[in-house]
């Protein structure tokens, strides 16, 4: 019988002024040394459950709490949070907000100082904690000098320096690029495997959770609806789908293959578990009616033209050089690359928020330097990652009208376009509400509606899926597809490559300020070495397709689980 670190017994909790229980009758035992994954749709209660483990819920928030949470022998409602903090470390989602000090060593020392640990002991623990997260030698650096992944690793170092029995990580990778996310997962895995630290991690990163977690808890509406190994949980594709959760692509690929009638012994949830079955699958007779869709051909004058663009920031950072590309009307372009690759710098040149150090950027044939930002806004709509920074009016209607008033449209045009935009975004019923009183998904729709009211020819979505759950991400991307179908030119920047094959036609891969690749999405996703050079990994379905290609040279370069299933499907059973 494994030793227990934490026991939740009949836990139910309701926040003050909330009508519903966020946690409902939760019973859970967390074993010493395990890596427990916590999954569930937005609002399932994952963060609340995390905060119940260190007493922040209910001690900090108040509200109604039933049942008990024990960390070792301590009841979390009977001991102050500051005492529990020595047993439970926590890493939060936002790397910016959780770093308090102005140097790495002081960041690690902060909790230890609060716990009255002697100075000599603090000095001993700092290098150990930094070594555990591979941040040696950064003691004197300011946290803001670190990359996103390094910041999260610093937050982990600060948490483990306390030597807690339990480390909680609440969506630690959702705001990071793939490199940062990989760093954090690798660190968590090492801490768990090598130091035996117990880890509870809430995360939407299905592939990594399947790889590293020992058990997975599926929460929905505050209740535990499934608990088991990653194989047991992630192979239940329908259960996940009914909870708006995304399984690892390898699981959804095998599930889709099985649905075509092909006998697959199991639904593997990790790539390595799928390997034994690939030989048989690769040699199946492909569906003769399957054909790869041809990349759409777009012709005409470029709407957006970049020629030999270079940009050097005032501090001397060379952010872009030698970038040339044309984007034509009606294209759907995906821009990818690690953080610092130059994606946002490039896009800011389209909007004249940055001016070229060398080269030229033209919109509709006009040099952007000759256009004001507000004039360009009529032609290019830009939707930034955080909707809350783009909301500054008292009502949804006023928010939509804002741009139209700035652009001096007549009252009739303002009225018509506002109504059209409210209807298109399904915001008619909430037009008089304060935008910030709406849920996050709806706030994103308000911002998109406000941009669409200007009827721009080009719409740029900058990291629209960061911090969104699977459903929220799909919702925004579906809007982008509708706009594309309506004839708009769409540009999306995202790290979530697995989401994009259904939407984008063309991919621009950026790395270290240069354009590494500009091709159709199929060619780009299969350009393994180029992606690797900018620290990106293609979705698992692409990897499966490539592995089967190595086993059977005739196997096609496929992109999605559905494509693989359709390609392999017996003729009459093709979906």
């Amino acid at each position, binding site marked *: 019988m494994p030793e227990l670190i934490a026991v939740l017994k009949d836990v139910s909790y309701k926040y003050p002024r909330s009508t519903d229980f966020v946690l409902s009758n939760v019973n859970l035992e967390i074993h010493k040394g395990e890596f427990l994954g916590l999954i569930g749709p937005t609002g399932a209660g994952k963060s609340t459950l995390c*905060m119940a483990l260190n007493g*922040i819920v209910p001690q*900090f928030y108040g509200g109604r709490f039933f049942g008990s949470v024990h960390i070792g022998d301590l009841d979390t409602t009977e001991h*102050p*949070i*500051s*005492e529990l*903090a*020595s047993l*439970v470390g926590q890493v*939060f989602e936002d790397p*910016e*907000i*959780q770093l*308090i*000090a*102005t*140097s790495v*060593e*002081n960041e690690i020392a*902060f*909790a*230890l*100082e*609060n*716990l*009255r*640990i*002697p*100075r000599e002991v*603090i*000095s001993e623990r*700092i290098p150990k904690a930094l070594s555990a997260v591979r941040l040696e030698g950064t003691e004197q650096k*300011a*946290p*803001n000098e670190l990359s996103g992944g390094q910041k999260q690793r610093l937050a982990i170092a*600060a948490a483990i320096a306390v030597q807690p029995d339990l480390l909680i990580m609440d969506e630690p990778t959702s705001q990071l690029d793939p490199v940062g996310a990989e760093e954090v997962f690798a660190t968590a895995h090492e801490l768990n495997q090598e130091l035996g630290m117990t880890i509870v991690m809430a995360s939407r990163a299905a592939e990594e959770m399947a790889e590293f977690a020992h058990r997975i808890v599926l929460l929905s509406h505050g209740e535990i609806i499934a608990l088991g190994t990653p194989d047991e949980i992630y192979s239940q594709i329908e259960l996940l789908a009914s909870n708006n959760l995304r399984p690892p692509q390898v699981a959804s690929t095998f599930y889709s293959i099985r649905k075509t009638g092909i006998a697959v012994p199991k639904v593997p949830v990790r790539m390595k578990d799928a390997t034994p079955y690939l030989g048989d699958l690769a040699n199946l007779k492909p569906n003769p009616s399957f054909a790869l869709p041809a990349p759409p051909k777009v012709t005409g004058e470029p709407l957006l033209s970049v020629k030999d663009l270079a940009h050097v920031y005032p501090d001397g950072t060379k952010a872009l050089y030698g970038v040339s590309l044309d984007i034509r009307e009606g294209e759907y372009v995906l821009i990818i690359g690690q953080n610092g690759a130059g994606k946002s710098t490039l896009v800011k040149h389209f909007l004249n*928020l940055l001016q070229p150090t060398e080269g030229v950027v033209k919109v509709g044939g006009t040099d952007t330097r000759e256009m*004001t*930002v*507000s*004039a360009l*806004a*009529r032609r290019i*709509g830009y939707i*930034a990652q*955080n909707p*809350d*920074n*783009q*909301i*500054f009016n*008292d009502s949804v209607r006023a928010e939509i009208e*804002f*741009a*139209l008033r*700035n*652009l001096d449209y007549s009252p009739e045009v303002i009225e018509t376009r506002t109504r059209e935009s409210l209807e298109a975004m399904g915001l008619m019923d909430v037009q008089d509400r304060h935008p*910030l009183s709406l849920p996050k998904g709806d706030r994103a729709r308000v911002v998109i509606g406000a*941009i669409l009211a200007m009827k721009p020819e080009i719409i740029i979505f900058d990291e629209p899926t960061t911090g969104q759950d699977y459903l929220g991400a799909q919702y925004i991307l579906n809007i982008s597809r509708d706009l594309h179908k309506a004839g708009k030119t769409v540009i999306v920047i995202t790290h979530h490559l697995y989401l994009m094959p259904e939407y984008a036609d063309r991919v621009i891969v950026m790395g270290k300020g240069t354009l590494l690749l500009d091709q159709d999405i199929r060619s780009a996703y299969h350009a393994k070495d180029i992606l690797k050079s900018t620290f990106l990994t293609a979705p698992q379905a692409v990897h499966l397709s490539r592995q089967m290609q190595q086993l059977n040279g005739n196997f096609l370069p496929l992109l999605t689980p559905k494509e693989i299933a359709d390609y392999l499907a017996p003729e009459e059973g093709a979906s």
Partner: protein
Amino acid sequence: MSMMKFQTVERDSFFSRLDFRPKLFVVMIVTIIAFAWESPLLQLILAVVIVATCLLVGVKWSYIRTILLIMIPFYLLLLLTHAFFNRDQVMALEGYDSLDQLRRIFTFPENWPIIGGSFATWDGLIYGFNVIFKTLTLTLVIPLAVFTTEVNNMIVGMVRAKIPYKIAFIFSSTLRFFPLLIGEFTAIIEAQRLRGLAMEKMSPIKRVKVYSKVAVPLILGALVKSQQLEVVLQSKAFSGSPDRTYLHESILKPADYAIMVFFTVFFLTAFFLLIYYKIGTFGGPI
């Protein structure tokens, strides 16, 4: 959004190596003396010394220039009001009995409406310069101490100077999150420009109106962030209790003592000269 760094100086200097307590002492002494002196010449010398020290220790000229640019309208207003309206105070300070003793610069003709007959005086104008240099000293002496000290050393120094830990922490948190708010402010203004707001065509008054509209999302954002910060602090065992340890010791070194002794002597000398020789008074020997 990336976290900007507060206006901390990068240069390693004698001043930046000092403990925060002697720096606080310097701020206190300079502030008292700036308030006590009424001599424009001495105030000018003090302001020049402070500006020069700022530059020597690495405070960027661009920062000082920005402060000067922001203050210029205020300074002009000060000069005008003192030149035209400060009569009773300068007469009292200079021991004059009648208005005729004031040295006039010019007088508006009597027949001019409203302002006819009013006059500007050299005495008022000079006193205005005294106030300007005083303000400049007070505006720059605090950044001189704050920008040259690492925030955590500031907390340790303040706690050792018997300032309650909670106040020291609030002070340092403000410094830590001020750049974050500036970043949010810039993002909001950028978002407004991208929705057709032509800032470049706006009058200053209209711009101020736009900036005031940014306050609501900025404050709401700050409230959300402050609650997140509170949760983070709780999880790091922060309780505001002064009963905690510190990684870095705050030990006064000979240089710290030397600075405190020097400024104590400076303070006593300045007050001795002020009281017994009227040096530093308005209209005094210097």
